[in-house]
């Protein structure tokens, strides 16, 4: 059974609209991450969290907010979506002390028109 689940899996939004991508993990990992993947490119880190109530900026945080209300849940929020944010977004979890060993969800494809 999937240990990292994302919703929605597909989303079409309008420019200027608000988008929330949700992630739930049952791995009981402290660390969670949001990456985006653009066609033909690797993943880039947007935000991450080391535990409930904490969020940190990754390499490309502009235009995004994150929320970690609990150990299991980590959301990515686009307050004012733009077409440049059209991408596939991946959530991942990782255990403390396990450098680089991440468990990814299946991705959320976001299209901003």
């Amino acid at each position: 059974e999937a240990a990292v689940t994302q919703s929605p899996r597909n989303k079409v939004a309008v420019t200027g609209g608000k988008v929330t991508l949700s992630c739930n993990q049952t791995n009981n990992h402290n660390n969670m991450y949001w990456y985006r993947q653009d066609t033909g490119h690797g993943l880039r880190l947007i935000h991450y969290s080391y535990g409930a109530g904490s969020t940190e900026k990754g390499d490309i945080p502009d235009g995004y907010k994150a929320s970690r209300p609990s150990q299991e849940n980590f959301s990515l929020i686009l307050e004012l979506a733009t077409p440049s944010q059209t991408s596939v977004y991946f959530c991942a979890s990782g255990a403390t002390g396990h450098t680089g060993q991440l468990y990814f969800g299946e991705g959320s494809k976001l299209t901003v028109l």
Partner: protein
Amino acid sequence: AQSVTQPDARVTVSEGASLQLRCKYSYSATPYLFWYVQYPRQGLQLLLKYYSGDPVVQGVNSFEAEFSKSNSSFHLQKASVHWSDSAVYFCALSIGTNTGKLTFGDGTVLTVKP
């Protein structure tokens, strides 16, 4: 800043042939290195990792990788590929411990011909 380069965007091999996917990194010290695989419509899965020690590391599904400090490389290899190995392969590095903050290469699309 650190970076990862995968010079081959696409690789096609025949089933049963050997495989090498190339990865070069740029970082002033020795990073932690990883190979991930992405099957169609799925998230990434860890194939193998290198932290230190023996430069040849074994991974899942008979994949292995060799770290070379002198060449700043971490190439992925497999002796005999199967059609089910068709996927996108990503090389990644971490410069810190206890973190999932990874820098990824652009990926190599592997197609295995029957």
